């Protein structure tokens, strides 16, 4: 492993004191924000499902941090990843702990500005900032990071972070739908497997891999069950569901599955009692676009669900939420090579990330959006983009055309990693929801 004193390619040398001060300030804000967000979520639904308590706890990073620290003491390795294209099954199979390390802290993005220009995606800037002051426990605890080279910002992010932690880059082909692409990607999967094995000292054999796949499939099953419950009249607030989805990024997978199943059991009971969280004619909204990371970047879901008139988020197409776990690994034969291929395909082919293109453009995403709109009965779409996120911003035009043709209102909401524009955004969101309610009334 690289020693800290080695010359850094990007990162400035900060004095201990400065780091300490900054971290303290931002951590304090962060704790306040976590508490505030959860408070708001509790208030939004007076009759919040009991099972949500667990997720509130795990949403506060401290508890999981303690667990991971303890596991590390026992010799377990932690492997962080920055994008859902990273094959977590392989990490699990090597008995290591996967955690996603993207940062959602607004204030940290300002620190990132010292290293990269403000035009760069704020999520990436924030992750850099978080690293500078050792803010994110998961980023700090990671023994290695998997960086999938999806967009430009991500590509360089890996390079910058490699100043501190070994970073394994995975080249993702931009055209996924071709024989040579899948060949390249399968090789990348094999290479990552070798890296993980080298780091952990555990060889990934068929048995472990199978069990890792099955554990993840169980999680997918619970995950899908939750999303399916949101197809009907609203039985859970969108924010609550999003929080459940998001905690998967750092929670222990088996416990997460169990708790999510418990939540679904509770929700199912409510469905049978017709116990809804809001009036059934509340406009049903879907969010798509740039990932939204807990705890800070929670403003848009909060705005939508606390607006007047209120909206309810029943679905999203975000790689930080519903895209995390919806697609299962489909294994044909349980030989190690077929399992690896199946894992490869799941992480490449099923993804609807805008970093892909093909003969028909990123048709997969369009189709998936349309399916979601139909199956989840969506009445309006919020297209969320943070400034600097080129790919999502550019794809908007196409999505809008298709949605217009399908008579689904879509609203482009662009923002920054900042709390300052909340007031102004509130007006915009409310106007959109007003329009949606008017449409429903007719």
């Amino acid at each position, binding site marked *: 492993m690289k020693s800290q004193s080695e010359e850094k390619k990007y990162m400035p040398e900060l004095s201990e004191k400065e780091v300490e001060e900054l971290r303290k300030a931002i951590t304090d804000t962060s704790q306040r924000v976590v508490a505030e967000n959860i408070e708001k979520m509790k208030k939004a639904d007076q009759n919040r499902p009991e099972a949500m308590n667990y997720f509130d706890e795990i949403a506060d990073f401290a508890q999981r941090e303690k667990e991971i620290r303890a596991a590390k003491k026992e010799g377990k390795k932690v492997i962080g990843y920055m994008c859902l294209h990273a094959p977590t099954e392989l990490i699990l199979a090597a008995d290591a702990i996967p955690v996603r390390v993207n940062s959602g802290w607004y204030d940290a993005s300002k620190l990132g500005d010292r290293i990269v220009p403000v035009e760069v995606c704020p999520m990436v800037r924030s992750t850099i900032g978080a690293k500078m002051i050792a803010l994110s426990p998961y980023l700090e605890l990671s023994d290695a990071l998997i960086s999938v080279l999806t967009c430009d910002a991500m590509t360089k992010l890996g390079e910058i972070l490699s100043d501190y932690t070994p970073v394994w880059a995975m080249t993702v082909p931009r055209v*996924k*739908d071709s024989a040579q692409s*899948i060949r390249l990607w399968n090789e990348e999967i094999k290479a990552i497997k070798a890296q993980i094995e080298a780091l952990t000292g555990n060889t990934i054999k*068929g048995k472990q891999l199978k069990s890792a796949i099955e554990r993840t*499939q*169980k999680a*997918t*099953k619970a995950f*899908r069950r939750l999303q*399916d419950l949101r197809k009907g009249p609203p039985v859970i607030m969108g924010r609550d569901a999003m929080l459940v989805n998001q905690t998967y990024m750092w929670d222990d997978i088996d416990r997460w599955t169990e708790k999510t199943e418990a939540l679904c059991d509770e929700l199912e009971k409510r469905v049978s009692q017709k116990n809804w969280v809001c009036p059934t004619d509340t406009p049903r909204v879907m969010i798509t676009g740039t990932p939204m990371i807990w705890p800070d970047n929670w403003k848009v879901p909060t705005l939508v669900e606390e607006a007047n008139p209120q909206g309810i988020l029943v679905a999203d197409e975000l790689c930080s939420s519903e895209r995390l776990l919806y*697609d*299962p690994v*489909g294994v*044909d*034969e*349980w*030989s*190690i*090579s*077929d399992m690896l*291929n*199946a894992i490869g*395909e*799941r992480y490449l*082919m*099923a993804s*609807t990330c805008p970093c892909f293109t093909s003969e028909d453009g990123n048709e*997969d995403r369009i*189709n*998936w959006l*349309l*399916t979601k709109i*139909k199956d989840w009965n969506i009445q309006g779409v919020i297209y969320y983009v943070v400034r600097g996120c080129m790919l999502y911003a550019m794809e908007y035009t196409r999505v809008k055309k298709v949605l217009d043709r399908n008579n689904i209102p879509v609203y482009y909401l662009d923002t920054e990693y900042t709390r300052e524009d909340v007031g102004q955004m509130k007006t915009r969101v409310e106007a959109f929801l007003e329009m949606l309610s008017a449409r429903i009334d007719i």
Partner: protein
Amino acid sequence: MMELIGEILKLMVLSGLALAGVLVILIWKKGLATKVTYLRFLVQAVSMVAIFYLFTYPVWQLIILIVIFVLPLFIGRFFCGWICPFALIMDAITLIRKTVKVRYRLLPDKLNKFLHNLRYVLFLVFLIIPVALYLLDPPSSFDTSFLLAMLLSGPFEPWRILVGPLIPLIVPWEGPLAISGVYFSYPYVQEVILYSEVVFSELIVNIIAWVFVGLTFVGSFFVRRVWCRFCPTGASIAVVNRFKGFKWAPMLHIDKDEEKCTKCGICKRVCPVQVTEVYDQKGGKITTSMCTLCTRCVEMCPYEDCLKLKMGGKTVFKSRNWLEPSTIE
């Protein structure tokens, strides 16, 4: 004594058939058919035994042949996916390969397509050979009816090539190998022997026959459903699907909902005969004559309602969130 053992064996098989038949109906009725692969094995086994009994009566062969020719007009290559005994043998070998965890090999897509077309050539060749042989060595007195009789039921029985895959491991009539009054055979082996006999001595003929058996065995160990890639019987079945005007004809077909498909690629990977159309096509009816309607892709597609097996306009079986039944197990 030997015959008695044979009879007892036959009876045992018969009762097994009845049992399996009841089981299939039960499974389907109870809606337990989520694990289609197992159901398919059962259907194949039942069919194999049924065909075995049908073959006990020579007259049935022609009727089966007619059925094989006419039915595909409407149900595509359903026969290949669910009934063919040779396919059962190959699937069983695949099962063995799976349990020993050896990975299959893929044929390059181009070769696969080439073989698919080659089947029509094979089909013709096998039909022509008997005629050629007959012409090379014509009977002394020329008689049309005799000629026809020779061609249709004479030693060569060219149409037999079409029932080749129907010949299961055990045949009621004289097979190349007899154990305790029960004859064993292997698809096409009789034809291979018959045709090579014209040229070679008995020893060589036997060697050729065994090489053929060995090759197809090993072949299907490494390549899933290897014979189906160019099987002439499959040709007779596939041929009607090839004509544009008849695309409406197959009532049984795979149907795809483009919007539900995330292009996850699973259907392409799991298809035992490497059909790419289900993945490539933009939705709608999948009409390729390569598809054997085995429904493996429908079973494995993880998106609800994305792929369907349709009969007429009705959905018989559709893809679903296959993560669900795992709790029941």
